[in-house]
């Protein structure tokens, strides 16, 4: 019982499995608590915006979702790269577990953006720089998921996915700037996010609470999915067999 905890301790799938199993309920608890607090602040306390009315309240889910979509891609590419370079299976499994959650947040950001755009800009969609690059990010997630799902061999899937994620991560800044110039060169910026009206402090607090909720939700879901992937990929090992009671 006197094992030393090293940074690599939880890179063993069996240890990760039991640790994550204990953490998941706590993550869910944090998610629910912060989501309730954030939604109460957002819908109950935060004042109505004088320009956008109550429509602006969708930022409490839109902005955290947009942040998560970008952070998760970077984290996914990082874990995929670590898994490829150091041949760490657990890191590759994290990367695969992160992808669907990242895609979900990207879609959520686009969808809530459309719902927000209709009452404020009068249109569901404009080919604005931010919207377009977020849309391409969604396609990159889909490409990663499709590639890793199409390859049966787990190691080849992880490494091929890692290469794609890295190529994508290198390309994201190029895509972002090209889309930005494309938009400004052609029609001028129709919507500027940088010139948003100053935000009341209650709005900011509600948004930060919702961001914490989104982080905790991501941890909970990704841990659960990673546990399932661990069980699937380690199904011939002794510890999984003893766990499931199989022969």
């Amino acid at each position, binding site marked *: 019982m006197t094992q030393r905890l090293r940074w690599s301790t939880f890179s063993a799938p069996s240890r990760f499995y039991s640790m994550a199993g204990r953490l998941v309920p706590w993550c869910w608890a944090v998610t629910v608590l912060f989501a309730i607090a954030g939604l109460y602040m957002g819908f109950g306390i935060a004042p109505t915006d004088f320009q956008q009315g109550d429509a602006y309240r969708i930022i409490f889910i839109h902005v955290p979702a947009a942040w998560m979509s970008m952070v998760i891609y970077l984290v996914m590419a990082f874990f995929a790269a670590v898994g490829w370079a150091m041949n760490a299976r657990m890191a590759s499994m994290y990367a695969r577990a992160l992808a669907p959650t990242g895609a979900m947040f990207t879609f959520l950001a686009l969808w809530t953006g459309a719902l927000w755009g209709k009452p404020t800009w009068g249109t569901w969609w404009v080919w604005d720089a931010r919207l377009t690059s977020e849309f*391409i990010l969604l*396609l*990159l997630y*889909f*490409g990663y998921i*499709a*590639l890793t799902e*199409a*390859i049966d*061999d787990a*190691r*080849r899937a992880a*490494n*091929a996915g890692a*290469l*794609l994620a890295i*190529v*994508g991560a*290198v*390309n994201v800044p*190029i*895509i972002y700037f*090209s*889309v930005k*110039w*494309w938009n400004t*060169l*052609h029609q001028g910026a129709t919507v500027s996010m940088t010139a948003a009206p100053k935000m009341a402090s209650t709005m900011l607090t509600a948004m930060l609470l919702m961001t914490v909720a989104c982080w905790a939700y991501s941890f909970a879901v990704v841990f659960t999915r990673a546990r399932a992937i661990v069980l699937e990929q380690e199904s011939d090992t002794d510890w999984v067999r003893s766990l499931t009671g199989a022969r």
Partner: protein
Amino acid sequence: MSSVLLATTQRDLLLAGRRRIEALLPLGFFIVAASLFPIGVGPEPQTLRQIGPGVVWVCALLAAMLSVTQMFASDHQDGSLEQMLLAPQPLVMLVTGKVLAHWLTTGLPLVIAAPLIGLLFDMNGAAIVALTATLLVGTPVLSLLGAVGAALTLGLRSGAALVFLLVLPLTVPTLIFGTGAVGAVESGLSPAAHFSLLGAVLILTALGAPPATAAALRISLD
């Protein structure tokens, strides 16, 4: 080093020359797809002139993706790809040679056919010259990026469809700068900025894509 590159290119060109019709299929696709647009959108010259550069570029993208899956497929089937991986010569050079051959057999015909499509879309002389020049700089990028996708999806059941999903989002900058240059010429501005950016994308891809393709081949044939 460069002899490996030239030998690979020569070999692939010879193989393409033996199957001429197969090698010209992407060009056929390009012309058919581009000529469907006037029928679908309507024959008004004003509209056609406006959508022309975009249509030509998008059709070139699709034609390149359609042909790129064949870059490694037959070598993979007859086992010569594994010999290439085992060869003492650097794999990056071999890959570059194959990409060069792919561009010469599919990219270059598209560049040559582009003025014809430009005429069909009622574009003026200066715009057609700009369009052809952007394709000349841009189509190598498509072959280079397509090679990464083809190497990643080597031997997969749904490989051909996957390449589209994997590579097309990455070609967005090329598409934007390519059509942007033609748009600038049409509105009387200098296309120099777009050409510089397109050239920068080409240099970056030429440096980055062959090593990535080589790494992807090693992953796929592990």
